């Protein structure tokens, strides 16, 4: 039995020299101190390297790669990891000081599950609002049917499975590569959760400048679903929910198009989603779509 785990915190980054210090500091301030930090610089053109190397802590490793995709950066970090568990952190987000400690308690409690998720909140730093992601249940496959509440925050993956399970590095998938990966992981290993909020996904103004190409979104969805369903376990677990998954993926596209004020296609995808699974109309997402289209 493994009691005290070495965690590998993988931080992919690209041109976040102004934010990454705060992110790394939030790891260095953990009450649980057995960890390594692996920063994968995805070809930054700013002074990220200088900022990271200036932090004097021997537990930080810095690796620079040629600019590719987040999936490549994350896979590279997972491969370099020496810990029993890998956890991910985007270079503009933060952990609270109990993040690794709470994870250690749960991983011990569930006897070292391959896939685990810890609660977090999405914080809008401008208006001070936050939305807590803290109502997930153990081995609840519905988590991923309606979307990706896990985002890429609070995720813990056992190192031993990362030889066979990795992020899909196809560039067209970018933005859904995490969801696609979680589908495979949950189908194969289930998911254990701890709903204590221990991290914050920070939203800055620059995230709200949105513009989406409907065709790219569509391709992304198709690719994500088809890739995930190549896995036999995914077929077995999620096969019967195929319509729902497809439907919610359409309304997800509709929402993004609505946010970039592409009304015509937004309606089209909303209708398409409802045709596949009419009940999807009664979701909070539909409300958000209408709000974006009508009110704003």
């Amino acid at each position, binding site marked *: *039995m493994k*009691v*005290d785990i070495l965690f590998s915190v993988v931080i992919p980054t690209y041109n976040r020299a102004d934010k990454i210090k705060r992110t790394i500091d939030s790891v260095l301030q953990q009450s649980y*101190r*057995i960890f390594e930090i692996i920063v994968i610089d995805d070809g930054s053109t700013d002074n990220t390297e200088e900022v990271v190397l200036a932090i004097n802590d*021997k*537990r930080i490793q810095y690796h620079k790669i040629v600019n590719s995709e987040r999936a490549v950066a994350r896979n590279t970090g997972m491969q370099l990891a020496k810990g029993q568990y890998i956890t991910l952190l985007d270079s503009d987000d933060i952990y609270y000081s109990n993040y690794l400690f709470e994870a*250690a*308690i*749960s991983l*011990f*409690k569930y006897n070292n599950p391959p896939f685990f998720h810890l609660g977090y909140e999405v914080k809008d730093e401008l208006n001070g609002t936050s939305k807590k992601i803290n109502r997930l249940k153990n081995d609840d496959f519905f988590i991923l049917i309606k979307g990706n509440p896990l985002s890429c925050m609070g995720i813990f993956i056992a190192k031993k499975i990362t030889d066979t399970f990795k992020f899909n590095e196809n560039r067209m998938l970018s933005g859904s590569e995490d969801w696609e990966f979680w589908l495979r992981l949950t189908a194969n290993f289930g998911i254990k959760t701890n709903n*204590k909020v221990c991290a914050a996904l920070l939203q800055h103004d620059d995230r709200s400048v949105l513009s989406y190409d409907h065709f790219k979104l569509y391709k992304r969805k198709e690719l994500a679903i088809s890739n995930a369903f190549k896995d036999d376990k995914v077929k077995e677990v999620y096969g019967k929910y195929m319509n729902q998954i497809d439907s919610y993926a359409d309304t997800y596209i509709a929402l993004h198009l609505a946010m970039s004020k592409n009304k015509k296609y937004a309606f089209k995808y909303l209708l398409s989603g409802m045709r596949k699974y009419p009940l999807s109309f009664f979701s909070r997402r539909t409300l958000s779509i209408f709000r974006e289209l009508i009110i704003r």
Partner: protein
Amino acid sequence: MCGIAGFISIPKNYTEKQLVSMTDLLTHRGTDASGYFFDGFCGLGHRRLSVLDLSDAGKQPMFSACGKYAIVFNGEVYNYKEVAQELNIVQKTGTDTEVLLEAFILKGPDFVNLLNGMFAFVIYKLDESKIWIFRDRVGIKPIYYFYDGLNFVFASELKAVKSLLEQNQTLKINKHAINSYLHLGYIEEPNSIYENISKFPSGHYAELSNNQSLKFTNYWNLFTKINDEIDSFEEAKDKLKYLLFSSVNYRLISDVPFGTFLSGGVDSSLVTAIAANISEKKINTFTIGFHDKSHSEAEYAAKISKSLGTDHHEMILSEKDSIQLLEDIVGVYDEPFADTSAIPTMLISKFARQHVTMTLAGDGGDELFMGYGAYQWAKRLQNPFLNAFKQPIGGFLSSLPQNKYKRAAMLFKYDNEANVMDHIFSQEQYLFSENELHTILKNKDTNLLTYGVPFSLVDKSLKPEEKQALFDFKYYLKDDLLVKVDRASMKYSLETRVPLLDYRIVEYSFGLPIDYKLKNGESKHILKSILYDYVPQELFNRPKRGFSIPLVKWLKNDLGYLIEDYTNTQIINKYDILDSDAVQLLVKQFLAGHDYLYNRVWLVIHLHMWLSKNA
């Protein structure tokens, strides 16, 4: 685990020979090797008991890679590999000592915050004649010292400091320390029985350069660490379980055979259950029992060991074994120390040492999880009705013939609310109350009896039971229980580790709501709920018994001679501390059937035994 001793003297008052002879007094603490460093000013001596890296690489005093620093270290730092990794220290030996020294050089004295363990160590900077002294957070490992502005002398045990000092001066008995001893049964930090020798405070380090004053830093203070963030019972149980496993896991790091003390109670059973769960090898468990069933839990220990599948070793004590050790307490504990459970602790240590070099023990569970009856009394005495009528209630109870009511009566007899905690403690332990001290002390001077507890630092409102538990943590646990275990086990070169006192568990448990600990009158609720995940509950459905010896019976039979030898008018008058008439009355009442006075009689006997050998 080891013994350390040494000095730094600006006028070069001490020789290398003196260093060797003071260190040799600690040979029992480490029989495997010895080492000395002496440069004229500074002497560092070390007796080694090898537990990690048994090779000569672990020899002490150890020097830093740069050659500028030397260290002598007693204890264990369980997370030294992680500290080495965190600070990128490349180890040449497999010892924690090396990591301590290099980490100190890298980070300065505050590096001590990184350590999880039990320790007392001294670091010397050779070219500046500067030293630093460190003691662990809770005070598991001891260090005594003397400082007069020119000479600093330290050692793991009082006897070594004393032996060096006695060569140049007469040591004066500390009167306040005797009062404390009579009231609490031990002498509290920083005092010792001698006026100029102190116990180095736990949770502190100190810096000393040239002939300046000792500069103390309190690097850990429980009272500022208590968190009132409330987890649900289930969350708290998960967290505590993890911390317990982590703590035991750390404490199984060892290059020698190990076991656990298994008394049959909740704390030792829990530690054993977790160790058995983690260890790949079958673990050894040790129990001692008495023929007198009312003082023995051995039969339960045997059942628990069977349920956990341990290699169980049981020894039934004869009265003869125990009685012989009663007189040894004086030499082992160096200062008056009335806790006679030191005897079974010494005997079980001796017994365990025949099989293993290291054991785990369950100490701390009672203070952390409300295990003592004193906590009920703390609550009762704060009841406004009982408090208002404490005089008549006390009077009524003492008029009843049974011993248990007489003892209860004593609990109501106190005048000063500020002293209620030490009063409750003294009466729970059958020791002299402050009022009784007025009668028994020749000079009647008891105004030094104050035991401060910094409750105002705690960021949560505390109930009387919790205050009593914190009082015990600050005084009883550190200066009685941990001293008892350290001296008793080290007498036989046995290292004892106390997983429940991992500072993470200490901090967390004192922040837990009281009803997680005391539920429907049942103590240690949360701890038991973890224990029952591993050992069947039926094995614990019985009243708690202490780890005690049948002293009442012995004092009235085989040990009767001690009463004659050490409470007679002549000896009492010779040392002139107690009032002879009051002592005679006490003894008379005890022998006439007032059994509840047994420990007071023992206090008098043991004090005069100590004085005869030391004064």
